[in-house]
């Protein structure tokens, strides 16, 4: 009797659950059914997931425009975290692997593209939504990096790196250094050694702020410049072999970072962490390396109080390409068609120019780069610096840096050694050895 009762009850529970599941499946199938029709009856919501500090991808105004024009396809713009390698990417991979959690459109930094390309099972083929037609918009390298190992298009480019130095005019004034951007650029026109010298002059006068923000910002600036001189590779060669110990670009960037740290010019703040963000507000540093997208990080993090106190000068040591991202549609998206349309809009010349206006993110789209508005653009936050003139000429000649499949995890670990060295837990003498070991361990 007891057994029968129990079995009966369990059967009842099971049948209720099956019914519930049936309803859910019915729901979701009707959902996709209606959404693929031209005028969906109900509103669907797309989630756009990005990363980065400040204004990050600079999509606020673009998303507002989209939402106003598409009442039935609303976009939720969700910037998850400041840090790509440490937080965003591991979490995203976990979501992609488990089949749930990722948004409908997700941002992928250059450092993650190697792995993303090698996992065709994670992302939707954008070719089936007609995005192949966008090829002419992009430089060849930006386009080709969006093709996965099966040759299918899975991601379209957003922005590119470009390089400059952002500096605080008020702090420069306090140190008796020139504040005009042309004179500041001239200050270190001879290269990085001049930059260090300027830093020492600065530090001699100013005690409560440091010359540069963090060791890993300046390291990445130099690494991207050196990579361009060494076959456009950093931690991996083009056969996915780890070359962290052999690539002269890495060693040069490491040595320079070590030098600037030993000279006492760093604020010892790791970039894209809370103390670093606080450092902007507390004026703990006077300069930082600024790829185009970093302008938005600065303005968004430091806030309106520091508007007009920042300016942009040219970078010592020539151009470099640090950063730049792509957008992709995870396979798990319930509305891949609408997601692909959103992705198409955000990476369009119009969307990229809106992002450029909002955050300074330099467009990768050729029509956007050729837009006369971009060439003449100034940035009010950075004392009306002519950013179109500063970045414009270089963005078309940017060299693509090859980044291996495991780039993000190697980058994360080796930069942690740099931070340890800067903050005193790794002695300078042992740092290079530890740096290589960390890279080798992370590459597994």
């Amino acid at each position: 009797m007891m057994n029968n009762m129990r079995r009966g009850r369990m059967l009842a529970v099971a049948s209720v659950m099956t019914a519930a599941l049936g309803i859910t499946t019915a729901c979701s199938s009707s959902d996709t059914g209606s959404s693929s029709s031209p005028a969906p009856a109900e509103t669907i919501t797309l989630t756009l997931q990005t990363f980065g500090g400040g204004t990050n991808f600079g999509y606020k105004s673009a998303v507002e425009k989209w939402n106003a024009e598409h009442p039935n396809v609303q976009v939720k713009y969700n910037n998850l975290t400041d840090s790509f390698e440490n937080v965003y990417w591991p979490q995203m991979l976990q979501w992609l692997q488990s089949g749930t959690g990722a948004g409908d459109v997700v941002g992928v930094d250059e450092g993650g593209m190697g792995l993303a390309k090698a996992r065709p099972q994670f992302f939707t083929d954008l070719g089936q939504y007609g995005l192949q037609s966008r090829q002419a918009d992009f430089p060849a390298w930006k386009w080709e990096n969006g093709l996965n190992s099966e040759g299918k298009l899975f991601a379209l480019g957003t922005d590119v790196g470009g390089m400059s130095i952002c500096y605080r005019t008020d702090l420069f004034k306090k140190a008796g250094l020139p504040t005009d951007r042309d004179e500041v650029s001239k200050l270190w026109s001879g290269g990085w050694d001049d930059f260090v010298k300027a830093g020492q002059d600065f530090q001699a006068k100013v005690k409560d702020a440091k010359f540069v923000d963090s060791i890993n910002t300046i390291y990445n600036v130099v690494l991207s410049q050196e990579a361009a001189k060494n076959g456009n590779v950093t931690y991996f060669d083009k056969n996915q072999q780890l070359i962290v110990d052999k690539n002269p670009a890495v060693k040069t960037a490491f040595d320079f970072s070590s030098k600037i740290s030993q000279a006492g010019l760093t604020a010892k703040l790791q970039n894209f962490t809370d103390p670093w963000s606080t450092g902007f507000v507390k004026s703990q540093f006077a300069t930082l390396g600024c790829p185009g997208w970093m302008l938005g990080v600065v303005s968004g993090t430091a806030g309106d109080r520091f508007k007009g106190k920042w300016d942009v000068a040219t970078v010592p040591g020539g151009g470099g390409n640090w950063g730049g991202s792509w957008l992709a549609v995870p396979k798990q998206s319930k509305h891949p068609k609408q997601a692909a349309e959103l992705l198409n809009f955000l990476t369009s010349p119009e969307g990229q120019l809106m992002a450029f206006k909002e955050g300074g993110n330099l467009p990768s789209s050729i029509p956007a780069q050729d837009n006369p508005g971009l060439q003449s653009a100034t940035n009010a936050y950075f004392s009306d610096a002519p950013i179109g003139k500063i970045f414009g000429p270089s963005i078309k000649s940017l060299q693509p840096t090859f980044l291996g499949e495991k780039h993000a995890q190697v980058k994360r670990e080796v930069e942690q050694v740099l931070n340890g060295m800067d903050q005193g837990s790794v002695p300078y003498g042992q740092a290079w050895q530890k740096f290589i070991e960390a890279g080798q361990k992370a590459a597994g």
Partner: protein
Amino acid sequence: MSVNLHTERADPAPPPPGPGRHHSRSSRRFWSQMDLKATPYFLISPYFILFAIFGLFPLVFTLWVSLQDYGLAGGDASFTGLKNYTKLLADADFWNAVINTVGIFALATVPQLFLALMLANALNKRLRGRLFFRLGVLLPLVTSVVAVAIVFTQLYGRDFGLFNWLLGFLGVDHHIDWQSAKWSSWTAIASMVDWRWTGYNAIIYLAGMQTIPRDLYEAASIDGASSRRQFWSITLPMIRPTIIFTVFVSTIGGLTLFAEPVMFASNRMDGGATGQFQTIAMYIVEQGFRNFDYGYAAAAAWLLFILILLGVGINYTFVRRIGGSK
């Protein structure tokens, strides 16, 4: 089911004797026997079913995964036997995490339980606003671990932290970078743990103390025992089972410490540049979900499990001697 019910109900309560009913009576006896024997198991079964699904299955699955080279980010799994374990036992980073975990555990738990004991003893006395104080010590437990960790991380900030500011008044000009050394990071994390759990343990001790018969104390005071002597000779031995319980719980909690050090490392899993405060739980997550070596992480999880069993066993032999009566 309804048919079955119907026949049972149709059966009249006092069965009239007769040879024809014999079969029915033995079936009734069977069911009433079943009722007596099976019902208790049935009633407690939800726990065991849930435990099997959420406790036992993951445990066994983890063991299975730990014997493979299992990549999380779309890699293939292949059986490697005990390779993960042998690699792990030779991995200096794993042992570093073990040392950190045990170090933070000792630094946190010993003062915590001692303090809790003192606190409980004080709260057990007659004092004004007793309920207020008893609730007060429990208050930290209500706050979320992450909130506690975030606030403490601010307090331990290098440049603008409260503790460095206070130390400045005491003449420590140098800003301590709490994260960068083992001793300072351990202290900071241990203080977070203690802030949250001391009151909890105090309340459990208090509950234990209240079960001690009053007349024991009366007899002791008639014999002229001081209150200190009463504490060591009556209170402590009498609440030994409670102490054993809290030591077990703290051991498990301490060895699986995760949220506090992660928040302290601003969401990173490596616990500082040289892993100064990376705990085993962080190491597992780092291996599994940062480096995507799922099999390796599973092996580390199993070693942690064994370590906890060991830790609990060692602590049990220590704590059993409390009071020293036997």
